């Protein structure tokens, strides 16, 4: 077997294994850390697909940002919540099974009917430069809209934070 193929299977097993731990674990914090391994595994698979910029972004945004946010949320709420007992028994059996069977059928249909383009990947040169040029030319509008959206989110969070803070100071 090729070296990259071995690497692919290692990371695929890591991703799937930690994803299942994330789903089946009863401890929220364990789930969050399992999510970290899943994300790192996915990033590694991106690297194997020559999408190094995407892999680094995945690490920076999901592992370095969102996951820390999740952990913060879990830990700042009380310590007991980490040991909360989830309901592992199935609730709403009928709708759940209908939904999952539908999803399974749809996915299988898509998987079998898609024309999978199978060709050898050639090592792309200068991914970052191409990406940057495209973001600043062809995809300028979505890029700016995304930026504005984030700005609105930041302004909104600052507004909420200052409102929450200003109340007790006024009463004092």
């Amino acid at each position, binding site marked *: 077997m090729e070296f990259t193929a071995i690497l692919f299977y290692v990371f695929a097993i890591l991703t799937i294994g930690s994803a299942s731990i994330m789903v089946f674990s009863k401890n929220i914090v364990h789930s969050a850390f399992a999510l970290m391994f899943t994300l790192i595994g996915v990033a590694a698979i991106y690297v194997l697909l020559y999408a190094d910029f995407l892999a680094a972004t995945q690490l920076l945004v999901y592992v370095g*940002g969102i996951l820390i946010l999740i952990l913060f949320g879990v830990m700042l709420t009380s310590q007991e919540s980490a040991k909360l007992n989830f309901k592992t028994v199935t609730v709403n059996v009928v709708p759940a099974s209908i939904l999952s069977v539908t999803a399974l059928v749809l996915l299988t249909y898509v998987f079998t009917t898609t024309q999978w383009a199978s060709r050898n990947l050639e090592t792309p040169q200068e991914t970052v430069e191409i990406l940057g040029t495209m973001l600043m030319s062809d995809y300028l509008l979505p890029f700016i809209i995304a930026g504005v959206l984030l700005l609105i989110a930041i302004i909104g969070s600052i507004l909420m934070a200052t409102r929450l803070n200003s109340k007790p100071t006024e009463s004092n």
Partner: protein
Amino acid sequence: MIESYGNINPVLAVLIHALIPLTIILVYALVAIWGERKVAGFIQDRLGPHRVGGWHGWAQSIADLLKLIQKEDIVPKDASRFLFKFAPFMMFAASYAAFAVLPFSSWYIGSMIDIGVFYLIAITSVLTLSVIMAGWASNNKWSLLGGMRSAAQLVSYEVPTIATVLTVIVVSGSLNLMTVTEMQSGNDILGFLPNWFIFQNPFLIIAFGIFFISILVESHRVPFDLPESESELVAGYQTEYSGMRWAMFMLAEYADMLLLSLLGVTLFFGGWNSPFGSFMSGPAWGFFWFLLKGFMLVFVMMWIRWTLPRYRVDQLMHICWGILIPATFVNLILVALWEVVF
């Protein structure tokens, strides 16, 4: 580069290639831990470790390492076993992985990837997670507080770090640190100064100041060592660790110091370029200059450690969000303007 290893198994060649930075880190960590204690001693008019190994106690770190290997590996009863055991290794793995994109000399760089410094920043964000992991898994309030503090300060200071790196990228126009370094060769400024970025643009001096403060925070150094502030949190996230696992934390911390110093050297001080133009330059001298400059920055970090007292958490956050981040962005615009004008 890997081709230059000759006709050996490619996997083996990759391994050898990857082990070069590891060797440098391990040797450096031994020297730096001893050096830190010597610097502390000299600053306080003492001698520092002086017994082991003869000349100025040079073997002190080796003796400490032997001691740590023999220590019992204690895992607290109610700790989360796997995460507790895994956290130190993840922390070191994250710092070690980041060394892959540093150009040690014109001959050696771990991986010639385009995204270079972006990858470095991305992989070091895993450090934060490993600190939280250690803090939470220890099941100890000091550890948890240390982990939370670490997460808060690392996430906050990632912004000025990335923004100052961005300032340099604006000047260089490349994320690849090898290209960034190559752009800084030669001695043209004012006739004798090397073409380092810090001399090329006056606003980059301010950028370096902000960058240096940020890397002090990112590597948990005094005066920003809140995650492990021993007078408040026992030892922060390291409280429950002992023996080799604790040593891994120590190693990761020192590796992180070196990593960020070397990043600063690459971005502002010309990386492996010799300060004397073509004199004393070449692949081997590249290693020498790069590590020498890195050690100089590490020394400054130690010097600061034994000079300044620790900041409070709110002061730390105020410095970041109130001063550094606005200053960085204003500086970014000024640097860009300077580049456009000159």
